[in-house]
C-alpha cells in the first residue's frame, strides 16, 4: 500500500497541472493550433544537437574525473568535491556571466572561444553538468564494496579488467539515468540557450514558453508539451532498455583502500581527467567570486533571502527524498519515467495548471511557498532517485534474505537496517536536491512572489534594476551557501564513517 503513495502523488500532481489546462484550452479555442512547420523541425534538430553534444562531453569528462577521484587520495580532494556542488545551484544567468568572465570578449581567457553560439551554449552546459556527473558517478563508485578491490588486487587484475569486472557493472546501472537526466536538463535549458545562442538557437522549451507566455496560446503550449513528453519518453524508455539490474551480492561496509591505477599511464590519465574537470569548473566560479567579493553587503533583505532559500531548499529536498525512497525501490521502468515527470512536463505548464486548479484559494505567502516546494521537489526528484537507486542496487537481495531469516520487517527494518545503509546516499541525494531547488524561479514568476524572495530571485531583481554588481555579491553568497552545505554534508559523512 505504502509504496504506491509516491506514484499516486506524482501522477496526481501532473494531472492537477494538465487537466485544468486542457479544460481551459478546450474552452478557449482548442488544441488544433500546432503548426508543425520548418521552424518547429529546426527547433527540434537544434535542441537535439546541442543537448547531445553537451551531454556527451559532460558524461565522459564526469566519468573519467569521478573514477580518478574515487581511486586517488590527494590534498584538497574534499575541497574540490565540495566546490563541485556549487554550479548547479547557480541561476543560469550567473553561470553565463561567470563563463563570460573567463571566455568572453573581456574575459581572462577572452578570444579562445567565440562563446556566442553553439560553443558558448555547450561550454555553460558543461560547466553545469561536469560537476553534476562527477558527483553522481563518484557516489556510485565509492559505494562499491572494498572486498571487491582487495579480491581484484589478489587476482592481480589489470586496470582494464578491474574496470570491466568491478566498476562497470555498477556504473552501467546509473549511466543511463545520469545520461538521460543531463540530456533533459540541456534540452530544457532556456536562459543559457537564448542568451548565448540568440533567436536561431531556439529549443522546444523556448517555443512552449513563448506559446504560454507571450501569445497565451494554451492549446499550442499543450501541443508542444505533448511533443516534448513523447520525445522524452522515447529517450527514457530506450535508455531504460539498457538497464540491466545486476545487484552486487556483497554490501559495502567501509570505504576501503584501492590498489589499482599504479601505472604511469593511469596516473597521467587520472591527473588529466581531474585537471580537465577542475579547469572547466573552477575558473567561472572564480570569476563569480571575483566579481562579487567587493559588492557583498549583508543587510536585512539578503538575510531574509537566505532564510527563504534554506526553507525552500530543505522542503523540496525532504519531499524529493521521501518520493525517491519509494520510487528507487520499484523495479519498473515506469518508476523511472514517473521520477522524470517534472522534467518532462515543462514546469511552466505544471505551475500554470496548478494555479488554474487552485485559483479559488487565496494565493498568499504560505500557499506560494508550498507550491514552490512542490514544484522544486518534483524537479529535483529524478536526481534523488538516480542516487538512491544506485545504493539500493548495491544493497541487493542479500539483505532481503537475511532480514526474512531473522524476521526483521517494517519499522525495525527501516530504522535499523535500511536507514544506516542508505545514509550516505541520502546525504548525497539530499544535498543534490537541496542545491538544485534553489535556482528555479518558474513558480514565483507565474504565481506571484508575495514577498517570497529567495537568493536567485534577489539576483534577478537586482539585475532587473541596474544593480548587477550587487547581484554579483548575492551570487557570491549563494555560491558560498552551497559550498558550505557541501562541506557540512561531507563532515557528517566522516562522522558516520567513524562510528
Amino acid at each position, binding site marked *: 500500500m505504502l509504496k504506491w503513495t509516491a506514484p499516486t502523488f506524482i501522477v496526481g500532481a501532473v494531472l492537477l497541472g494538465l487537466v485544468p489546462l486542457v479544460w481551459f484550452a478546450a474552452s478557449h479555442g482548442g488544441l488544433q493550433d500546432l503548426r508543425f512547420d520548418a521552424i518547429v523541425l529546426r527547433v527540434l534538430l537544434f535542441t537535439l544537437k546541442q543537448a547531445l553534444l553537451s551531454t556527451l562531453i559532460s558524461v565522459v569528462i564526469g566519468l573519467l574525473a569521478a573514477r580518478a577521484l574515487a581511486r586517488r587520495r590527494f590534498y584538497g580532494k574534499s575541497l574540490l568535491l565540495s566546490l563541485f556542488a556549487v554550479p548547479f545551484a547557480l541561476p543560469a*544567468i550567473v553561470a553565463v556571466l561567470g563563463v563570460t568572465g573567463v571566455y568572453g570578449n573581456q574575459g581572462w581567457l577572452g578570444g579562445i572561444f567565440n562563446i556566442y553560439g553553439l560553443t558558448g551554449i555547450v561550454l555553460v552546459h558543461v560547466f553545469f553538468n561536469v560537476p553534476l556527473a562527477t558527483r553522481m558517478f563518484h557516489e556510485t563508485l565509492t559505494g562499491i564494496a572494498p572486498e571487491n578491490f582487495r579480491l581484484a588486487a589478489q587476482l592481480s587484475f589489470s586496470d582494464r579488467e578491474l574496470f570491466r569486472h568491478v566498476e562497470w557493472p555498477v556504473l552501467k546501472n546509473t549511466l543511463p539515468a545520469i545520461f538521460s537526466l543531463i540530456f533533459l536538463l540541456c534540452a530544457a535549458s532556456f536562459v543559457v540557450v537564448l542568451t548565448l545562442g540568440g*533567436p536561431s538557437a531556439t529549443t522546444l522549451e523556448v517555443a512552449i514558453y*513563448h506559446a504560454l*507566455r507571450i501569445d497565451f496560446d494554451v492549446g499550442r503550449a499543450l501541443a508542444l508539451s505533448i511533443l516534448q513528453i513523447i520525445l522524452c519518453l522515447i529517450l527514457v524508455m530506450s535508455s531504460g532498455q539498457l538497464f540491466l539490474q545486476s545487484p552486487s551480492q556483497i554490501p559495502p561496509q567501509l570505504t576501503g583502500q584501492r590498489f589499482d591505477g599504479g601505472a604511469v599511464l593511469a596516473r597521467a590519465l587520472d591527473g588529466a581527467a581531474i585537471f580537465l574537470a577542475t579547469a572547466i569548473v573552477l575558473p567561472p566560479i572564480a570569476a563569480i567570486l571575483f566579481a562579487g567579493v567587493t559588492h557583498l553587503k549583508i543587510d536585512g533583505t539578503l538575510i531574509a533571502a537566505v532564510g527563504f532559500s534554506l526553507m525552500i531548499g530543505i522542503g523540496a529536498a525532504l519531499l524529493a527524498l521521501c518520493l525517491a525512497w519509494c520510487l528507487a525501490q520499484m523495479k519498473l521502468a515506469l518508476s523511472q519515467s514517473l521520477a522524470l515527470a517534472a522534467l518532462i512536463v515543462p514546469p511552466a505548464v505544471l505551475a500554470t495548471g496548478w494555479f488554474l486548479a487552485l485559483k*479559488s484559494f487565496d494565493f498568499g505567502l504560505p500557499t506560494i511557498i508550498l507550491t514552490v516546494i512542490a514544484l522544486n521537489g518534483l524537479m529535483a526528484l529524478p536526481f534523488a532517485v538516480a542516487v538512491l537507486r544506485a545504493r539500493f542496487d548495491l544493497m541487493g537481495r542479500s539483505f532481503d534474505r537475511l532480514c526474512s531469516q531473522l524476521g526483521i520487517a517494517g519499522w525495525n527494518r527501516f530504522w535499523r537496517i535500511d536507514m544506516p545503509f542508505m545514509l550516505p546516499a541520502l546525504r548525497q541525494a539530499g544535498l543534490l536536491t537541496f542545491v538544485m531547488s534553489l535556482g528555479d524561479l518558474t513558480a*514565483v514568476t507565474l504565481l*506571484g512572489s508575495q514577498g517570497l524572495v529567495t537568493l536567485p530571485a534577489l539576483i534577478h*531583481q537586482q539585475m532587473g534594476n*541596474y544593480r548587477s*554588481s550587487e547581484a554579483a555579491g548575492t551570487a557570491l553568497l549563494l555560491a558560498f551557501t552551497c559550498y558550505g552545505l557541501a562541506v557540512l554534508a561531507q563532515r557528517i559523512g566522516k562522522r558516520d564513517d567513524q562510528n
Partner: protein
Amino acid sequence: MKKYLICLAALLPFSAAAAAKETLTIYTYESFTSEWGPGAKIKAAFEKTCDCDVAWVALGDGVAVLNRLKLEGKDTKADVVLGLDTNITDEARATGLFGKHGVDGSRAKVPGGWTDEEFLPFDYGHFAVVYDSEKMPVPPKSLDELVNGDPTQKIILEDPRSSTPGLGFLLWMKSVYGDKADAAWKKLAPRILTTAPGWSEAYGLFTKGEAPMVFSYVTSPAYHVVAENVTKYKAAEFSEGHYLQVEVAGLIEASPEHALAQKFLDFMLSADFQNEIPTTNWMMPAGEISVALPPAFNDLVKPAKTLLYTPAEVNANRRAWIDEWQKAVSE
C-alpha cells in the same frame, strides 16, 4: 429560531466590513514592489489618504500580469492592474474586465497626449541604444547608421518574444523600415553580438563589457550617474526619432472596491505618486512632480520625434512581425 440565525448570518459580513479597513488589491510587476522599486512608498502615501490597506500582488512582468488576468477571468482578485504597457493594452481590453478610469486624460503628461478612457499612464520612457563612450567615442546617429555600421562594433539586443524592450526595438525597426524591415534585420544581423531573453541578461552582459552597445532606455545613463557616479554610459540620439514605451494602469469594472480603485488612479497622477518614479523606476513621470528631477535627467537625450504604433496596430501585427524577424535573423 432558524430564521433569526439566517438573518444574523446575513448581517455578519456587513458588520465585519464596517470594522475592517477596505483593502485595495493591485496586481503589478515584480520590480515595482522590489526593495528598490516605488511600491512601498506609494503604498504608504496612498494609505494616508484613504484609511485603507493596499495589497500588492507582484508577478514576473507586465505580460505575466496580463496572463494572470486571462487565467482568472471574472474571478480575478485584482481591483487595480498596474504595469501593462501600450503594446498589450489592446489584448488587456479584450478580456472585457476593465472599466473606465474616470480621470481626466489631459492630466497625463506623455508625448502625444492621452485619450484612452480605460487605461491611464503612470510613466513613460523612450527606448535608446545605450553605449559605452570610452569604447565607442562616435556612436551611430541614426537607426540607419546602426544598421549599416561597422559590424565589429557589436550591439546586444533583447528577444521580442520574451522582453518588452525587445519588442520595442522590433517595432522601432518596423516603424522606420516598414516593408523593408526584413532586409534591414539581415543587414543588422552581423552586428548583433547576441539576443538575450530579457533586459537584465542583456544589460548584465553590456556592463561586463562584452559589447559597446545595448538596447535600453534613454533614462539608463541617469541611473549610472545618480547611483554610481559613472558617466561613461550614454544614450545615442537617433535622427529618425525614438520609439516610446508608456506604462499604464487600469481598474477592474466588477471590483467591489470600484470607488477606491478610481481614487487610486486619480492619486496615481498626483505628485505623491509621481515623485517616486524617476529615481526608483528609472522612467519619466507621467504627471506633475513637486520635487526637481536629479540634474542627471537634464543631460538625457530628449527625442525630437516620438515613434509609436497604436495598441490595435501592435495587437493585429505582432505575431506576423515576430515571424518576419525570426526568419530574417536566423538565416
